C-alpha cells in the first residue's frame, strides 16, 4: 500500500519535558488513523510537527514523499495545500464571514480560479457540511457544532489529500459530537482523503478510525483496529475503554 505520511523516530522536547520519544507512525492512502492518548501526551504536538507548525528535535516526517524539515517556506506552503487541518477551537477567522473563511484559502492558493468558480466550490463545500444557509454569518453568530462544521469545510475546500483533525468533537454535547463524527466519516469517503484524528472520544474513534494508535509515554505504544485494542489485556490500553466508550446511534 502507498503511504502518504511516514513518521519515524520523532523526538520533541519542551525544556526537560520529553513529549515524543522515537514516535513512529505510517498513514496509508485512504486510511483513517485515530490517535488516542491522555491530555498532554503529545498528540497535538505530533500533528503540528507533521504540518510544519512546530519544529521537531530529531527524527523524520515524510508527507507525500517530501521530508518536512528539508523544505523551504515556499515548498512547505505548496505542500500544505495538499493537507487540511481541523483545529480543536475551529480557529475561524473572526473578522470574516463563513463564506469568506472558505474563500480565503481558495483565493490565496488557487489564483487561477475565477470568482464564479470559487463561489461554486464554496457553495458545494458548505452544502456538503449542511451549512450553505450560514454563508453570510460571522463566526460569533455560530454555535459550537456549526463552527466545527465550518472548520471542516474550510479544511476540505482545497480538496486536500490528508486531513488532520485535532480533537474535532471536544467541547460538544454527545448528540452534536455524534453528528460531527458521522460527518467526518462521510467527508472522508466523499473527498477520498486519508486522515489522522486526535481524539478522546471513543465513539468518534470507533466510527471514523480504520486503525487506532495509542500514544503513551511519547511512543506508539500499541496500534490496531478498534476491536483489537478494545480486547487488549494491557492495563494502559484498557484505561482508554473503561470510560467514554460511545454507544450512541
Amino acid at each position: 500500500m502507498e503511504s502518504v505520511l511516514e513518521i519515524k523516530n520523532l523526538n520533541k522536547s519542551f525544556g526537560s519535558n520529553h513529549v515524543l520519544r522515537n514516535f513512529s507512525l505510517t498513514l496509508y492512502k485512504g486510511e483513517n488513523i485515530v490517535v488516542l492518548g491522555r491530555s498532554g501526551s503529545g498528540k497535538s504536538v505530533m500533528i503540528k510537527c507533521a504540518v510544519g507548525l512546530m519544529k521537531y528535535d530529531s527524527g523524520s516526517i515524510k508527507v507525500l514523499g517530501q521530508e518536512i524539515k528539508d523544505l523551504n517556506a515556499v515548498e512547505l506552503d505548496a505542500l500544505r495545500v495538499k493537507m487540511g487541518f481541523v483545529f480543536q477551537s475551529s480557529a475561524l477567522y473572526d473578522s470574516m464571514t463563513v463564506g469568506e473563511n472558505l474563500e480565503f484559502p481558495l483565493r490565496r492558493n488557487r489564483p487561477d480560479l475565477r470568482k464564479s468558480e470559487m463561489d461554486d466550490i464554496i457553495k458545494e463545500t458548505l452544502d456538503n457540511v449542511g451549512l450553505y444557509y450560514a454563508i453570510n454569518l460571522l463566526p460569533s453568530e455560530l454555535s459550537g457544532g456549526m463552527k466545527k462544521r465550518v472548520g471542516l469545510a474550510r479544511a476540505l475546500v482545497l480538496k486536500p489529500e490528508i486531513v488532520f483533525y485535532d480533537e474535532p468533537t471536544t467541547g460538544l454535547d454527545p448528540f452534536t459530537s455524534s453528528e460531527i463524527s458521522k460527518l467526518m466519516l462521510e467527508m472522508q469517503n466523499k473527498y477520498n482523503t486519508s486522515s489522522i484524528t486526535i481524539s478522546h472520544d471513543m465513539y468518534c474513534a470507533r466510527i471514523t478510525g480504520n486503525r487506532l494508535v495509542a500514544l503513551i509515554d511519547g511512543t506508539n505504544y500499541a496500534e490496531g483496529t478498534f476491536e483489537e485494542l478494545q480486547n487488549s489485556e494491557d492495563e494502559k490500553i484498557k484505561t482508554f475503554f473503561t470510560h467514554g466508550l460511545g454507544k450512541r446511534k
Partner: protein
Amino acid sequence: MVGGSLFIKLVKQLLPLKWKKQLEETGDIGRFTIRFFREFWRRPYEFREVVRQCFLLGYKSFPLVGITTFIIGLVLTIQSRPTLERFGAEAWLPAMVGISIIREIGPVLTALICAGKIGSSIGAELGSMKVTEQLDAMEVSGTNPFKYIVVTRIIATTFMLPVLVVTGDAIALYGSYLGVNIGDTVSFKLFYQQVFESLEYADALPAFVKSFFFGFAIGLVGCYKGYHSQKGTEGVGRSANSAVVVSSLLIFIIDLIAVQIADFLGIT
C-alpha cells in the same frame, strides 16, 4: 568567539531574572524587526491587504485625531494669549502656536493618540488571533501570517501616521484660528499668512520625517506584542496594554533622538 560566549554566560548568571527577561525581549524585538525587513521584500506583496489596513488603521482614526488636535489647537491659543498679552506680543500668537503645533505638538500628540487607538487594537487583534489558533490556521492553509498580518499592518501605520499628522496639524491650526478670533478679529487669510511666514522647511521637515518612525514604532510594537501573546484571554489584554505603554514610551524616545539629530545637522 569563545570570549564572547563566556561573556554572555557570565552576564546570564549575574543579571537578575527581571533584567534577563527584559534583555531577551529586546533581542526578540530586534529579531522581529529584522524579519519584518526580510519579509517586506519577498513576494507576494499583499497590496490589497495593505490598502485595507490603511483604511482601517488610518482613515478610521481620522475622527479621533481630528477632534483631539482641534481641541488642542484651540486650547493652546486661548491659554497662550494672556501671557503674550502681558508682553504686548499677542500679534505673535499665530506664529507661536503654528510653530508649536507643526514642530512638536502635532506629531507627538497624533502619535500618542494612535499609539492608544491603533497600537491597542493591533495588539488585541493579533493576540486574539494567536490564542485562538487563527495564525496557525492561516499558516497551514499556505499563507505566511507574518507577511499577511504583520508586514501589512506595519506598512500601513508607517505610511498613514504622517498623513494623520499633516491632517491633524491642519485641523489644530483651524482650532487655533477660532481661538484667536474669540478675543480678537483676525481674518482667515491673515492668520494663515502669519503662520506660514513664521514657518520654515526646517520646522516642517524633521517633524514630518519623524512621524514615519512614530508610525513604524506603533505598528511594530503592536504586532510584536500581539504576535507573541500568551496565556489565553488574559494574555490578549496584557498584549494590548503593553503595546500602548511601550509604543508611547518609544514615541518620546524617538522624539528625543530626532531633536538631537536635527540639532546636530543644524536643522533647527
